[in-house]
């Protein structure tokens, strides 16, 4: 079988081609470690059994992996003359049906992911056939869009255990060319001209390294392939070897020939048994075919390759440590110089390249350096394989041109975060890399650009993280890894990482101080600058980049003792509590309902949140997105349970008694006086807690009644004013005084308040409507949303037409639309993005549609058309298309020329609100450029001592629970300032509840609050959602998994 000349080489190729394109169907199963892990072995067996039973003439083979890990197991089916069709998520049970189809010369369309009509193997080209117009070409699948497979040129298409298939797609033809040309210098020049850079991470030019080795004079030289891939989350090299071992061998043999070296070693992790097995098989086959060993291809060149299995020490990825390991010593790095090219393995000149670097050699030899530099960026030509994992829809191996923007990986290829979450950052380069924040996703992925952000490209790990990932924990995790993999030779890495890990652990446990952050930063820089080898030099990168780009998360852990992601368990009670802006003890009130202790449940709820009935109706319920029950079926309906609790007590005959009990929690009078400006949710929350603390509280508001937006913006059908009145009543009973019809800045100045009170809290809402400047806004019939809603709430008669267009996608837009519907209008909502991008609560949007509102997505107002009397007669909207991803992770709408006209007589603009800040300017409060008041992020104190601000004034328009969260926080810090004692923990009573995890939580699906049928409710302002019945609330509480209970303490 030895190939000794061109004709025997070509004969072997032909035999291989006959296997790839046989005269009968060919079925291959992707059986890399990834496929096998997803059940490919059973799929293969099922096909094998089917073919045996039916005596069907089919070529069945194992291939490597085509890269789309999320869709495994992948099966390729091919019928002569037709394209290869890639089937995804194939189960063993599908085999019979697939074989039925094949027998009938069909392919199973419902399992088809894509087709491959022809394939550029770079070193060869194969036309599989054409047809199946309904199946998309592989390049049309989002995951593959923009990918360019140079390194992965054969992966997933050929049988890695069959050298003839490798020959058929052109493997070893570059070697043959090099041996026949017999001009090693020319090859090195070509590699240099191609500017191929080492793919292991450091990015040193391969051609230059080869030149060193070629020039080194020694009786022996070594070539080493570094296949010691050890980054968590990275598996490029494993897949490359498993799928296409021969291309690696070819690269190494060429390297050996041109550098004058006769021995190659592949240092591969023992944890990669399949890669080791396939590579060993490939070495044996190549030797048998005369492509390796003595007198290769009859050209007189001898080269041997052996495999050495490493025991899995991460530091052995460092070349000098790898060499020591090969020598049988402990894998510890040595300083360079001397470089391996001078004194490497056993003191002989040695060249080490990463697996992927070797795969690039044959393409450069065959296609030339000019072809290679066409791809990628000028400084970093070619492609790089990345393992895209973490919080993206489509995970897998991705080969992209160097220099591709990071956002293309995350959104285009990866499809963004699953479940509508927001991607927060990407960690590149594994434990040696850094975290790149979402705002910087425009960065080009190449060696220099990533280094500028403090990260590295590394060997190609790419871990995507979303809002559920705590960046402090991420840094801690990677340092824990490098700490345990440090060889211990040099002090910065050995002892420095140990101290860094201690400090990071302290942060995640809420036990660190800001002083330690400074120390951690200095220490990380020292480790980076002083360590002996790459492991230590790069180990602090995750810390330094997270501290640089996610500083606020570190500060949250230290100052507020909060982990927003809810990862650091010591800093959160449960995921729901952590996500609640008011940090309500949700598991507690659920448990109290479950134990049928409704009055205590009310006490628990109202002491956590003084507006339980209102928020129970209108809260954005962030708790839903975090509930772990959603992993089983659906989140617990926490919002409606607390509405139920509140509704059961307000207005009942028990109210008086319970209200007295609630008020009994009030601390003795402190004699301190607190003024609050604004009786909206922020102000009410702050007032409630200040009063509980025993301070004297007076709220000033320009309106005639309390509630702010709750009363004057949120329509009656969502929140009946009678309900709100109950809550205000309880706040009054707590001792809060109100001064109505008093506008700060007019009737009373801030300076007056400052003089009369010990602390002043500013909590004014966003009552200033943003205005879009488009032709026609001056016409009669154009109304801003908030004044519209306010007018309706106050019972004014408004000049509303019959056909109303609402512009916007937030809650104010939906409220306006549903209000207009109730006033008898025909309503169309115009929104410039897609449904999933709408900021409004999803249930509200659905309810609006059920009530008859139409929504035009992807449209933006172009101009408002008026009639002769100056009244609105129509609106013209321009269709938008979705462009690139913007900073919010949503696609930016781009206005097109396609104009559509909608007849209407009223246009309601709901495009956002702003705060009227003029009153604050006069009193010397610092205002930020964004027009919001500057406060300390934690204490909410403004630039003027004893003046605090919260809610919309500091955050811009937000929602009720966020607003209340600010009020609650402000009260805590105001009290600390006024009394000098941390009294928060003692403020609220303890509740004794069961601390046993329910062995059998209710299997019931989620209970949704009952709604009045759309047809009935759409013309009435009576409340549209009725809420949960007692038995439903009880059942819902029993669905809670009690994440608040800790095992072991």
């Amino acid at each position, binding site marked *: 079988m030895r190939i000794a000349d061109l004709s025997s080489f070509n004969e072997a190729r032909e035999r291989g081609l006959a296997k790839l394109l046989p005269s009968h169907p060919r079925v291959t199963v992707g059986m890399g470690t990834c496929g096998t892990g997803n059940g490919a072995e059973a799929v293969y067996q099922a096909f094998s059994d089917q073919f045996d039973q039916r005596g069907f003439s089919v070529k069945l083979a194992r291939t490597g992996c085509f890269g789309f890990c999320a869709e495994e197991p992948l099966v390729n089916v091919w019928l002569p003359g037709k394209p290869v069709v890639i089937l995804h998520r194939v189960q063993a049970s599908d085999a019979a049906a697939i074989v039925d189809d094949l027998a009938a010369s069909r392919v199973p369309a419902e399992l088809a992911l894509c087709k491959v009509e022809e394939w550029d193997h770079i070193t060869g080209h194969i036309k599989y056939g054409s047809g199946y117009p309904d199946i998309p070409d592989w390049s049309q699948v989002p995951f593959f869009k923009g990918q360019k497979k140079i390194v992965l040129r054969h992966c997933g298409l050929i049988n890695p255990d069959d050298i003839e298939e490798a020959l058929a797609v052109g493997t070893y033809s570059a070697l043959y060319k090099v041996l026949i040309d017999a001009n090693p210098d020319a090859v090195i020049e070509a590699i240099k001209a191609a500017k191929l850079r080492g793919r292991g991470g450091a990015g040193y030019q391969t051609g230059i390294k080869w030149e060193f080795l070629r020039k080194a004079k020694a009786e022996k030289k070594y070539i080493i392939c570094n296949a010691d891939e050890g980054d968590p989350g990275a598996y490029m090299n494993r897949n490359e070897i498993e799928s296409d071992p021969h291309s690696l061998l070819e690269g190494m043999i060429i390297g050996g020939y041109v550098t004058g070296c006769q021995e190659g070693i592949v240092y591969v992790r023992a944890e990669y048994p399949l890669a080791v097995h396939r590579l060993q098989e490939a070495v044996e086959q190549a030797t048998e075919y005369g492509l390796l060993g003595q007198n290769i291809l009859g050209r007189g060149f001898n080269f041997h390759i052996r495999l050495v299995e490493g025991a899995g020490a991460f530091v052995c990825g460092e070349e000098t440590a790898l060499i020591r390991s090969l020598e049988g010593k402990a894998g510890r790095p040595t300083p360079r110089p001397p470089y391996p090219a001078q004194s490497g393995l056993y003191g002989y000149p040695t060249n080490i390249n990463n697996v992927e670097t070797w795969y690039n050699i044959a393409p450069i030899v065959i296609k030339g350096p000019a072809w290679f530099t066409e791809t990628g960026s000028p400084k970093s030509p070619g492609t790089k394989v990345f393992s895209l994992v973490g919080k993206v829809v489509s995970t897998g191996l991705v080969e992209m041109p160097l220099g591709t923007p990071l956002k293309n990986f995350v959104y285009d290829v990866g499809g963004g975060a699953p479940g509508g979450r927001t991607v927060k950052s990407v960690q590149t380069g594994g434990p040696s890399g850094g975290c790149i924040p979402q705002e910087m996703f425009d960065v080009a992925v190449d060696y220099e650009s990533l280094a500028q952000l403090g990260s590295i490209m590394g060997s190609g790990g790419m871990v995507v993280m979303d809002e559920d990932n705590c960046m402090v924990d991420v840094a801690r995790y990677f340092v824990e890894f490098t700490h345990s993999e440090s*060889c*211990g*030779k040099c*002090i910065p890495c050995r*002892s420095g990482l*140990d101290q860094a890990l201690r400090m990071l652990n302290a942060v995640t446990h809420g036990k660190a101080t800001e002083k330690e952050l400074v120390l951690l930063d200095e220490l990380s820089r*020292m480790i980076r600058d002083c*360590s002996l080898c790459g492991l230590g030099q790069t180990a602090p990168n995750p810390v330094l980049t997270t501290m640089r780009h996610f500083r606020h998360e570190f500060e949250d852990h230290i100052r507020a003792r909060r982990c927003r992601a809810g990862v650091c368990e010591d800093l959160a009670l449960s995921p729901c509590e952590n996500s609640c802006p008011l940090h309500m003890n949700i598991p507690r009130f659920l448990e109290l309902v479950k134990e049928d202790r409704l009055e205590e449940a009310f006490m628990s709820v109202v002491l956590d949140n003084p507006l339980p009935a209102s928020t129970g109706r209108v809260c954005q319920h962030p708790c839903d997105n975090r509930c772990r029950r959603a992993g089983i079926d659906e989140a617990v309906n926490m919002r409606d349970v607390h509405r139920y609790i509140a509704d059961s007590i307000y207005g009942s005959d028990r109210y008086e008694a319970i209200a007295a009990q609630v008020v009994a929690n009030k601390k003795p009078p402190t004699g301190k006086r607190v003024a609050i400006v604004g009786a909206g949710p922020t102000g009410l929350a702050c007032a409630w807690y200040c009063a509980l603390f025993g301070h004297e509280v007076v709220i000033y508001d320009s309106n005639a009644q309390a509630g702010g937006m709750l009363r004057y913006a949120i329509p009656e059908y969502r929140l009946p004013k009678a309900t709100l009145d109950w809550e205000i009543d309880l706040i009054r009973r707590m001792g809060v005084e109100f001064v109505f019809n008093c506008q700060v800045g007019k009737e009373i100045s801030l300076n007056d308040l400052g003089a009369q009170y010990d602390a002043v809290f500013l909590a004014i809402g966003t009552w200033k409507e943003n205005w879009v400047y488009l032709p026609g806004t001056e016409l009669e019939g154009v109304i801003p949303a908030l004044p519209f809603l306010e007018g309706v709430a106050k019972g004014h008669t408004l000049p509303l037409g019959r056909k109303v267009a609402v512009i916007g996608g937030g809650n104010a837009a939906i409220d306006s639309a549903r209000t207009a519907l109730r006033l008898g209008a025909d309503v169309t909502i115009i929104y410039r993005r897609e449904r999933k991008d709408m900021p409004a609560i999803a249930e509200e949007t659905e309810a609006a549609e059920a009530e008859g509102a139409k929504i035009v997505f992807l449209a933006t107002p172009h101009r408002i058309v008026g009639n002769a009397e100056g009244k609105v007669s129509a609106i013209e909207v321009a269709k938008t298309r979705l462009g690139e991803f913007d900073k919010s992770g949503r696609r930016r709408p781009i206005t097109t020329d396609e104009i559509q006209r909608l007849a209407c007589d009223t246009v309601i603009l709901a495009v956002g609100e702003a705060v009227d800040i003029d009153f604050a300017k006069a009193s010397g409060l610092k205002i930020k450029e964004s027009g919001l008041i500057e406060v300390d992020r934690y204490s909410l104190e403004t630039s003027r001592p004893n003046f605090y601000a919260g809610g919309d004034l500091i955050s811009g328009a937000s929602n009720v629970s966020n607003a209340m969260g600010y009020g609650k926080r402000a009260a805590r810090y105001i009290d600390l300032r006024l009394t000098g004692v941390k009294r928060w923990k003692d403020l609220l009573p303890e509740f004794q509840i069961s601390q046993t995890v329910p062995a059998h939580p209710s299997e019931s699906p989620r209970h949704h609050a009952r709604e009045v049928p759309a047809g009935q409710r759409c013309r009435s302002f009576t409340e549209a959602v009725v809420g949960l019945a007692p038995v439903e609330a009880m059942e819902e509480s029993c669905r809670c998994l009690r994440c608040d209970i800790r095992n072991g303490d």
Partner: protein
Amino acid sequence: MPSKISIRIDGELVHARLGQTILEVAAENNKPIPSLCSMKGLRPVGACRLCLVQVEGLGRMLPACTTPVQDGMSVTTDNAKLRGYRQMIIELLLAERNHVCAVCVANGHCELQTAAAKLGVMNTRYAYRYPNHKVDLSHSRFTLDHNRCILCSRCVRACAEVEGAHVWEIGGRGIGSLLVCELNRTWGESKHCTACGKCVQSCPTGALAEKGFAVEEMTKKPEPVSRIAAFREVRP
């Protein structure tokens, strides 16, 4: 014949021979660079990182003990940044094990203690680890106290390179690294130890000591070890 070159050390032009390291040239010219793991005559390992210096034109700092001099090189051996890093390294070493100077045989003669004083280290900003390390008293003449070991590997090299006995090795990894005798025997059970004491004399701290000495009494004499090494080196 080693050819003569000139380099600048902290601005001063000095002569050097090719093949010398920055550390050697600096020492010859009375500009000592702090170091703990290097010892004359033993192969440099670049482990303690105290001798890091800045070489003009290079972004990365280089260990003086392993970097050969080159003609025209300009080296900075001391500045605020280097000093700050060196202090941190000393602090890390002090926090790593139980260096209780007050009750150490080498008190007053310890290179770590001296380096700390010279670099102005007044305290450690890092948390003391207080590891539970054993003391090996099994050898008839010598003691090994892991609490005082800084893992510089001078003993390992003295034994392997000068005595040729290969008794010592560093076992484990990372923060768990430990000086081990042969295949993790006690020193007294050693099969190869010649009791020559070269390791003890090479040890910069009180980790290796002779029996019979009390606090402050153990002085080390590494020079004879270096002289033997130099003698061996000139042989063909």
